[in-house]
């Protein structure tokens, strides 16, 4: 029997099987596998591997001899080698045998045990998250009075990155959201002849909900992911261990300035976003309904009460705190490899989006109950 472009031949006689290797194994596209040959040879008592017809002693031959040896050893068949090229012999000798105890039996954990482990894990995560919030509350006074282990330079850089550098994307998104609100409102309100109330719709929706939420989504994707990936990379490079070793609290040095920067910048970005959304609605009102901008602004002043902005501002501060704490928590608790860095960034964005929507829903319930 021969196969695979005549790379080998099996000669069986009297319970002994000779595996004659032949040809050029280095150039072959396909190779025989040890398990396949073991199947083909039936159940011999002894096997001889003969290399006298080989064109060259390619390392692939050694890999095959090594694999066949283990395959047959495991089946209790004696193996001898004959006329193998010298370097193949040397390579086979160099390959260490696998340790006998390597095959560990991995018992599948029971359902209840794994459920318990998961629950414990969730409890631990909640504890860690609560500890982080506690630390944030406890150390903020130190930050304000300048006693925290924070570099002023880092804080300024973070403010620039979260604030000024975010302006272009905040501009585009809020302008367009305002315009979209304007279009929907204009078409619907015009059918009732209530086009003049478009300023109410765009103004209240932007100030109370849309500007805060859209800006928070942008910041979760832009800044939250950056923070998490940055901190996770620092963790995997042992930079955070290095901070601990010089007696610096990673929370104060890394998380606190991020928390402060985001908490400061989010309300400002929200106000800027609200203004732009209103401009977007105003432009649409002018184009679709022919409302002059002056009339739109006058109507706006009557329609949008100051409390709408206060609600939006409070929510944007909450969103800022949420994004900063989530990204820092996930970044500082990420594993130490490249895949974990990407996972940390993705998880941050997902958790932040869910958190933003949840906070917004709770706020809507509360304001409704309070009648504001």
């Amino acid at each position, binding site marked *: 029997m021969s196969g695979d472009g005549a790379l080998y031949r099996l000669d069986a006689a009297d319970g002994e099987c000779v595996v004659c290797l032949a040809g050029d194994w*280095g150039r072959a*596209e*396909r*190779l*025989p*596998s*040890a*398990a*396949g040959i073991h199947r083909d040879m039936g159940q011999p008592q002894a096997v001889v591997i003969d290399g006298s017809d080989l064109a060259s002693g*390619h*390392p*692939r031959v*050694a*890999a*095959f001899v*090594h*694999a066949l040896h*283990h395959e047959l050893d495991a089946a209790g068949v004696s193996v001898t080698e004959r006329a193998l090229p010298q*370097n193949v012999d*040397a*390579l086979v000798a*160099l*390959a*260490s*045998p*696998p*340790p006998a105890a*390597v*095959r560990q039996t991995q018992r599948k954990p029971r359902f209840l045990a794994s459920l318990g482990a998961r629950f414990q894990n969730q409890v631990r995560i909640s504890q860690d998250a609560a500890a982080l919030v506690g630390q944030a509350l406890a150390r903020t006074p130190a930050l304000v009075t300048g006693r925290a282990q924070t570099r002023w330079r880092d804080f300024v850089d973070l403010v620039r990155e979260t604030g000024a550098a975010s302006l272009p994307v905040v501009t585009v998104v809020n302008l367009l959201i305002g315009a979209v609100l304007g279009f929907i409102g204009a078409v619907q309100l015009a059918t009732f002849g209530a086009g003049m109330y478009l300023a109410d719709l765009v103004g209240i929706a932007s100030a109370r909900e849309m500007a805060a939420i859209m800006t928070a989504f942008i910041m979760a994707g832009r800044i939250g992911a950056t923070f998490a990936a940055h901190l996770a990379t620092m963790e995997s490079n042992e930079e955070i261990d290095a901070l601990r070793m010089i007696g610096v609290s990673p929370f104060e040095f890394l998380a606190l300035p991020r928390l402060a920067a985001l908490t400061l910048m989010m309300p400002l970005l929200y106000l800027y976003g609200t203004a732009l959304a209103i401009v977007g609605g105003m432009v649409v009102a002018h184009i679709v309904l022919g409302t002059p901008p002056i009339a739109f602004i006058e109507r706006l002043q009557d329609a949008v009460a100051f409390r709408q902005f206060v609600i939006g501002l409070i929510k944007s501060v909450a969103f800022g705190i949420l994004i900063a704490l989530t990204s820092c928590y996930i970044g500082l608790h990420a594993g*130490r*490899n*490249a*895949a974990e860095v990407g996972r940390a960034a993705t998880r941050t964005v997902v958790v932040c989006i869910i958190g933003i929507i949840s906070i917004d829903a709770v706020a809507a319930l509360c304001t409704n109950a309070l009648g504001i």
Partner: protein
Amino acid sequence: MAELNPDAPMPEKGLVVRGLRMAFGDTVVQHDLSFYVAPANIFVIMGVSGCGKSTLLRHIIDLQRSDVGDICFDGQRLINDDPAERAMLQSRIGVLFQSTALWSSMTVGENVALPMQLHTQLRPPEIRDQVAFKLALVGLAGQESKMPSELSGGMQKRAGLARAIALDPDYLFLDEPSAGLDPITSQRLDALIMRLRDALGVSVIAVSHELPSIFTIADDSIYLDNESKTAIAHGNPRELVENTPEPRVRAFLKREPIDEPARESA
């Protein structure tokens, strides 16, 4: 032996570097580098930190490119725009990176298997045999299903070595193979490199500044100088240490303090 006459015909076998100049922008790292690595030799690129050893290695394997100079493997240029020929040549080169660069999201076995899956037509059971053998060669038999993060530093180096020899290359490049390893592990790695060279007949080009390792493994070497920005010594380091006329090479190989002219006058 390592010196190369610029007018000599290109040798058919072995690695030839001729007139190579490496630079980052206007900053020249090294210039006028010419040497020859004979088949099945262990060739060490020596020099102090920051002299451009790793940069030279990255130029030879075409991770970085230079406008000046020639690099040929067995008379063929790696810098080749024909993708098929390039892939052919790349499959004949194995690299062990300084940080091992094992793909952290794959098991050790998958790390070694991936080059074979990409460059050969072998089927999964055949690849399994090859992977098991390569890991056994470096003393990691049976560790296929471990993740790289579960291995110690020395084991990671050996796993990286198994991946580098996955395609049975003709040229094996090692960037600081013993960096960060203890003397015993480092000495074992040196022995492994020499045994693999003998058994596989592969040419090894290693970057190193670890003297014990250099004296143990090197057949031939080149010393890259930081000040003149070129190679100032060629040859077997065991001979260089006795008879090089260059004070900086002697200082490097003997770990002697260098006589600084500035300090003498002070």
